[in-house]
């Protein structure tokens, strides 16, 4: 009895942690484009998205009847396997966040569950045909459909109307963006908010704490909504930067076109029975509006790396899930070990992220998300996410402590030594975005850069945040 209670409690806490990462991973979907075009100030953006996510979580009435939508055989799934799957999904979400890669939180969760079930229940526990029809095919179609629609809309608008990205028209588009971005945030709350509620409710039912066929209890709705809202409010600025600045240099009409397309695709897929991943829809839209205005404005290298990240999500999360399940299924001690590993891994990834922090202050300053592992090597997102993802867990513990103890909240520059970054800072044409003149920070190690006094950066820092 106590051991059941223990495992249920562990699953609930882990599910809420996953919900939090889900929130900050996906806040860029709704707000990345609006932050980039200055339709919202960065902090206003995440506040609006967080509130709408919580509202959406309370609005949603239809809670998931199954954990995975048939991808794994739910009858064979135990709370411990769900725990292992959640741990894997959290670690993968954090890894992709570190590299600023938009990737689907649902796919990470499914991947983790698949790995855990393969270990815990064997290959018969996984419905591979459902994996193809519900994950792989939509993953291919989502960015294509969204990209095509957004590209066509942008192409036509720029062809038919002149001066759409100049004042005063751009002001209208910026206002419209606040509406379209809010729609995405609300839709996200109604869909992703209830995913975690579904997991917690199913665990409570399996453990006998709740009657079968009953809906989520109020405290479950409240805590799950709060977790995703807090996650969204914390911003996920690294992914925000890639979404808004990294893939395309967006102008307001493009931002509006991207958000409108994403909202349309999300609503269409929710109501016409072919589920598409929000993240992949939104990323596809952004690339589409870039290509629709001018092919050359899309940073195809970054787009390709993002697609590699998507391809890796399922197998990588499955691998993490399998390892976590193998350890956790040995008993309470195993669960404890996995729990400690999760906290250590999360702490380490956070520590690495602090060396080259991306915050609401500097989110728009550069298109690149850099990751620094050691004293001298600063690798940008250009590095293969596969290699980085694999090496993350080993590197961290060696050198993570120093950076972790320095809470650098102020305007620390992204420490890319490459001058190319600086030249590509300004071309956003929306008139309200000031062109930030970034002081050249050539080649200091990340740690030296972090140690610099905020005063070094006062001129560009507040200027950029104040104007946004």
């Amino acid at each position, binding site marked *: 009895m106590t051991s059941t209670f223990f495992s249920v409690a562990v699953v609930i806490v882990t599910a809420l942690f996953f919900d939090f990462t889900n929130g900050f991973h996906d806040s860029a979907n709704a707000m990345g484009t609006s932050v980039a075009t200055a339709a919202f100030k960065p902090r206003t953006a995440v506040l609006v998205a967080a509130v709408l996510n919580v509202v959406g979580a309370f609005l949603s009435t239809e809670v998931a009847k199954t954990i995975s939508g048939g991808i794994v055989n739910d009858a064979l799934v135990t709370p411990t396997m769900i725990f292992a799957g959640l741990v894997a999904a959290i670690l993968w979400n954090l890894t992709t966040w570190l590299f600023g890669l938009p990737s689907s939180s649902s796919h990470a969760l499914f991947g983790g569950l698949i790995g855990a079930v393969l270990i815990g229940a064997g290959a018969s526990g996984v419905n591979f045909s459902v994996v193809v029809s519900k994950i792989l095919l939509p993953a291919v*179609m989502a960015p294509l459909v969204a990209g095509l629609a957004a590209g066509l809309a942008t192409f036509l608008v720029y062809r038919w109307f002149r001066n759409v990205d100049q004042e005063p028209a751009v002001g209208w588009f910026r206002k419209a963006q606040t509406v379209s971005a809010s*729609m995405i945030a609300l839709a996200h709350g109604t869909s992703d908010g209830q995913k975690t509620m579904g997991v917690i409710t199913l665990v409570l039912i399996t453990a006998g704490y709740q009657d079968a066929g009953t809906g989520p209890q109020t405290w479950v709705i409240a805590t799950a909504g709060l977790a995703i809202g807090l996650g969204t409010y914390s911003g996920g600025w690294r992914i925000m930067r890639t979404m808004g600045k990294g893939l395309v240099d967006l102008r307001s009409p493009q931002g509006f076109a991207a958000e409108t397309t994403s909202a349309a*695709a999300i609503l269409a897929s929710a109501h016409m029975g072919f589920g598409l991943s929000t993240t992949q829809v939104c990323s596809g839209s952004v690339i589409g509006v870039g290509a629709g205005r001018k092919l050359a404005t899309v940073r195809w290298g970054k787009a390709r790396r993002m697609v590699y990240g998507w391809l890796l999500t399922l197998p990588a999360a499955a691998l993490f899930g399998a390892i976590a399940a193998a350890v956790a299924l040995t008993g309470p001690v195993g669960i404890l070990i996995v729990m400690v590993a999760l906290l250590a891994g999360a702490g380490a990834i956070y520590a690495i992220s602090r060396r080259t922090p991306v915050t609401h202050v500097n989110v728009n300053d550069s298109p690149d998300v850099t990751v620094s592992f050691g004293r001298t090597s600063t690798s940008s997102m250009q590095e293969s996410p596969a290699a980085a993802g694999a090496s993350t867990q080993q590197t961290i513990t060696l050198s993570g402590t120093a950076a972790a103890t320095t809470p650098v909240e102020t305007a620390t520059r992204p420490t890319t030594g490459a001058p190319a970054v600086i030249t590509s800072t300004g071309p956003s044409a929306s008139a309200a975005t000031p062109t930030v003149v970034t002081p050249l920070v050539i080649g200091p190690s990340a740690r030296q850069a972090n140690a610099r006094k905020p005063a070094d950066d006062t001129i560009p820092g507040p200027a950029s945040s104040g104007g946004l």
Partner: protein
Amino acid sequence: MTINWGALALVAVATVVAAVSIVGLFSLGVAAVTTHRRSRGGAEASSKTLVAGYACISAAGLIAVYGLYLIIPQFH
């Protein structure tokens, strides 16, 4: 393995049509309204342009309200 190709095609077409029409409608409205401002002091024709522009923008707004209706499950 059952893939619902019909639903997929429907989603794709709906997305393209919705995106192009909403963005097009709104841009048309904005173009009309801002053109009117630029040539301010113009004749009667420009106030018709203004009305048409605001009509387009309002129509786009109504579509957004329909989107809200779709998002909020309590409405259906």
